[in-house]
């Protein structure tokens, strides 16, 4: 069974790689299979970890009947398939979205404030001055409604900000490479070591 597993994995790996040549039925088979498995797996995980325990343990055994309310709220989303009741599906969405927005306003300011106080750089070294200028200039780039013609200094500062960002993006690009190559290396190792066994 293990050997069969390695062959199956190798087949899928090659099918996906075949896209590098061009889109083809072999790739499409892998694509549809992955999507189908992913969709089913998501539902299975949620069912076993939450739906079933909520129904069986919380509601039936422990008698937490109040949980029927959120369960029904979640079920409202399925009204989307019936034109006349469609508007009901907006209620759970509004709940999730409003609740999420509340959490953003409750928790983000702490992290934001910390980022601000950490930018109180002591201007006593070149590096700290560069950090300070970089942060301020980049930040000014994101001011949208102050007219740059009326306040030319904003325009100049913002262009310093753009330069800073380009260096940051260059750094980010350079850093990414290592990880991506490692992942590809992982797949190549699988093909050569576990499947073909040409390397030990």
């Amino acid at each position: 069974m293990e050997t069969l597993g390695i062959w199956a994995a190798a087949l899928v790996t090659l099918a996906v790689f075949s896209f590098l040549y061009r889109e083809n039925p072999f790739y499409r088979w892998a694509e549809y299979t992955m999507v189908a498995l992913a969709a089913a797996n998501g539902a299975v995980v949620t069912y076993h970890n939450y739906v079933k325990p909520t129904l069986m343990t919380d509601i039936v055994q422990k008698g937490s009947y109040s949980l029927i309310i959120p369960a029904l709220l979640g079920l409202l989303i399925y009204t989307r398939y019936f034109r006349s009741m469609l508007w009901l599906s907006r209620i759970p969405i509004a709940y999730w979205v409003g609740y999420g927005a509340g959490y953003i306003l409750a928790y983000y300011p702490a992290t934001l404030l910390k980022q601000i106080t950490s930018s109180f750089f002591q201007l006593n070294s070149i590096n700290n001055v560069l950090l300070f200028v970089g942060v301020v200039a980049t930040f000014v780039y994101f001011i949208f409604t102050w007219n740059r013609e009326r306040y030319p200094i904003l325009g100049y500062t913002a262009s310093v900000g753009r330069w800073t960002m380009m260096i940051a993006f260059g750094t980010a690009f350079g850093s990414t490479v290592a990880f991506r190559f490692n992942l590809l290396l992982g797949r190549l190792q699988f093909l050569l070591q576990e499947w073909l066994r040409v390397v030990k």
Partner: protein
Amino acid sequence: MFSMYWAAEAAKTPPPWLGFVSGGLAAQFVFVVFLFAATYGLIRRLQGGGRVAAIRKIAGLDAINEAVGRATEMGRPVHFTPGIGATSDPQSYAAFAVLGEVGKLTARYDTRIIVTTANAIMTAITDEIVRGAYLESGRPDAFNPDDIRYLSSAQFAYSAQVLGIFEREKVAANIMVGVFAAEALLLAEAGAQIGAIQIAASTNTFQLPFFVAACDYTLIGDEMYAASAYLSKDPALTGTVVAEDWAKMLILGVVVLGAILNTVGSKWLQNILNR
């Protein structure tokens, strides 16, 4: 041992006039109240017939017209994706705003639009937005629900299928606005290889470099949050952007003052903000 940082700040009490706020949260509370008040104040001013400043030019958003136009000339479809985020992610709202605009343009030019999503609920919402845009443009019959496609909630299963769609449908313009992670380069580079004109927007700093490298236009970070106001020109929404800019000016002032104080050795401001 972990003196680093957190320990020094623990157990701060708020100033007496903010006694009702939980300890250590006073500055945050004041900041949130400031944001709400500025937003509310500006909206009131607008309702009273006042005016607010315009948003500076954002090239990536202006380019949407060009992108849809190109696709129309070539007689090939436009692809739009709101990324792999869920409805709870604020970036998704920027995506909705841009999609509304793109939908109106494709309806007007009679160009096919394919929307792919990685979240079933996002599909429902995008469906409604595009449907609404076609209705608004007076062409409800041209809307094709089969082109609003939920692909997969798994990142790479999703990307696998988008790559397939790129090749099979010969997409001419690719607009990506929303939450993107590792699939960003995959989508952007595949889009570049089929020669599509590409506009991308994300606040994900890890993926922005790839968008900048592989796309024709990229909205960086906060620029995408301004999209809904910029595109709709709705005064209330513009008001929120102005309010945000006030907060930005406030922060800018605080940072400059804080740095000066810190340089002369005073922790006064830092302490206030941590109360």
